């Protein structure tokens, strides 16, 4: 019985970690700034490619992953200043612009770096619980997903920078009147979102095929999580990831991957029909 329970918890944790890590960057950029970032997958790809390049140059993997996040974050800030900044309050235009960026990035990488890149291999080996063997690295990913949520919570709710960021998002004019450089806050927030996407790429790079289109495989899951979660990361995206992980791992264990995906998408349809503001909209609405 115990191995079966562990197996279920492991699969749940694996799905949860993927949903949280894949969607955090998107959730911040959408939740805090209202920008629907269709280039999210390409920030992930950027993080993955940078991580693997650095690791192949001999850097230890954790540092290489940090480098991947940093690179994606810097590029994110650059893009905020040059493109996104001019499209605030024009959500449809920003969708088209980020979609364009995503195509430029995918095709650019294909042309410059070729159609594939050799991977680095998953570190840390495996362990066995009752007849089943598991990858240890995946346990690390689960831990990182939880730490990431805790870290972001501390950042936004218990630091001065977090208060300023939330003030800027809620009442930009008042924040400006109080002396906040709101332009810089937007740049940094977008950069943080991009860096988190890069981190996702770096963390999953050792477990995946490195191709220019790899970001696309994160897109469905991250959008589904953010749509179900609604605007707030902690009240929305995190519980959404937990619920979706149960549905996904349960359905996949029962009937295979296809049903896992069907379950995921049916959940979205039901949730956006019943709770148009997502989970966080429902929780916050209930408070009023």
């Amino acid at each position, binding site marked *: 019985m115990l191995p079966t329970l562990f*197996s279920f918890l*492991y*699969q749940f944790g*694996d*799905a949860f970690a*993927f949903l949280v890590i894949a969607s955090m960057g998107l959730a911040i950029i959408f939740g805090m700034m209202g920008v629907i970032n269709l280039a999210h997958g390409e920030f992930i790809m950027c993080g993955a490619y940078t991580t693997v390049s650095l690791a192949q140059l001999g850097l230890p993997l954790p540092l290489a992953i940090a480098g991947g996040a940093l690179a994606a974050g810097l590029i994110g800030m650059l893009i905020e200043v040059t493109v996104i900044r001019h499209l605030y309050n024009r959500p449809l235009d920003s969708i088209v612009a980020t979609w364009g960026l995503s195509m430029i990035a*995918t*095709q650019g990488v*294909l042309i410059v770096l*070729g*159609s*594939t*890149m*050799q*991977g*680095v*291999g*998953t570190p840390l*080996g*495996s362990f*066995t619980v009752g*007849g*089943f*063997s*598991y*990858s240890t*690295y*995946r346990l690390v990913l689960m831990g990182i997903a939880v730490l990431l949520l805790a870290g972001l919570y501390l950042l936004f709710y218990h630091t001065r920078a977090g208060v300023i960021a939330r003030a800027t998002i809620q009442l930009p004019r008042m924040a400006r009147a109080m002396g906040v450089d709101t332009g810089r806050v937007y740049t940094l927030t977008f950069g943080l979102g991009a860096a988190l996407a890069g981190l996702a790429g770096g963390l999953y790079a*050792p*477990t*995946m*095929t*490195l*191709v*220019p*289109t*790899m970001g*696309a*495989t994160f897109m*469905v899951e991250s959008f589904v999580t953010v749509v179900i979660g609604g605007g707030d990361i902690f009240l929305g995206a995190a519980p959404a990831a937990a619920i979706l992980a149960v549905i996904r*791992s349960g359905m*996949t*264990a029962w009937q*295979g*991957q*296809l049903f*896992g*995906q069907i379950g995921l998408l049916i959940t979205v349809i039901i949730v956006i029909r019943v709770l148009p503001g997502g989970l966080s909209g429902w929780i916050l609405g209930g408070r009023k």
Partner: protein
Amino acid sequence: MPSGSQLAKALRLGVAVAALTASAGLAQDAIKIGVLEDQSGDFAAATMVKVNAITLAAEEINAAGGIGGRPIELVTYDTQSDNTRYQEFMRRVLQSDKVDVVFAGFSSASREAYRPIVNQFDGLAFYNNQYEGGVCDANMIVTGAVPEQQFSTLIPWMMEKYGKNVYTLAADYNFGQISAEWVRNIVEANGGTMVGEEFIPLGVSQFGQSIQNIQAAKPGFVVTLLVGAAQASYYEQAAAANVNLPMASSVNVGQGYEHKRFTPPSLKDMYVTTNFIEEVDTPAAKAFVEKFRARFPDEPYINQEAANSYIAMYLYKQMVERAGTTDRAALLAELAKGDVCFDGPSGKVCLDPKSQHMSHTIYLAKVEADHSISFPTVWENIAPYWLGEAGCDLTKTDPSAQYTPSSPPPAN
């Protein structure tokens, strides 16, 4: 592509008109070959090399005087791993570019997307990819290997070595579904048991639960029919979880060179039946790889489809030269004689008149722990016999249909 080809088109038109008025020099007209292959998107890693192989063959043929004195002109479009693009560009090459023949397609979904258009305009298309078999269509010539060449060899060999319990992990579209049916039939015919079958939607990259399902089913080996870059993540994840089961495949290594892309030993004990990969150790294969690398030094891998595309160019040349025209009926009349053969990178191959598929020498490639390749066995000269035996005879009728073991040609 846009303005350059427009200009070229205008020029060609001018040349054609001039040639017509002079009512001479018709023999100098270029033979136009449409090339629709994925140069971007999910399949690009496996298919960009096909365009280079076709270019290499065209340059060789042109340097040696063209096809019956007429130079080859390639009309190439990037189909972006997108079935809609195939339909769009197939219409364009047949209707407005008016090509003589089209070389098109990687995934079976893309082939089935464009095939009705080839039928509609009564064109001729070469499909240079291994696939799930069964296309009985006089507008199509298939140079890729089919299940009786890849599975009837591979699966019994694997069952003998690794036991009779088999698990199939297949991409969830026509290729994976029909290939899995072949595997199931062959396993059962050899007294084995399917202990599991799972179909994975294209684009899925996370395999945690599938890996566990496989471990629970305890197969002797896993048949991996995974397609596209996303699904290739399976090998890394299975290796990280220490699944450590032998694998058998008709698509991996020979197309997507996973053994070059992943860190050893994630593909250890992967067995693949293929008619060509760059590691094949014959003089013909070595010579092909050498001239390919001389022309395209940065090519990551010269795969099975590269050889098939190259071979297809020479088969087409031979048929046109024998028929003295590019007219499809005349070409098929040559093919029907049953002696359209070519001695190329993968040894001698011949086209089968009944099915318009190609015979192959099939190599069993084994990936070792350090990801080097060995060849435990070779099956010489296997004919694409299934369609003909099942009742497809394109020399008599053209049903333009795809058949499977569970829906064979209707008995007359």
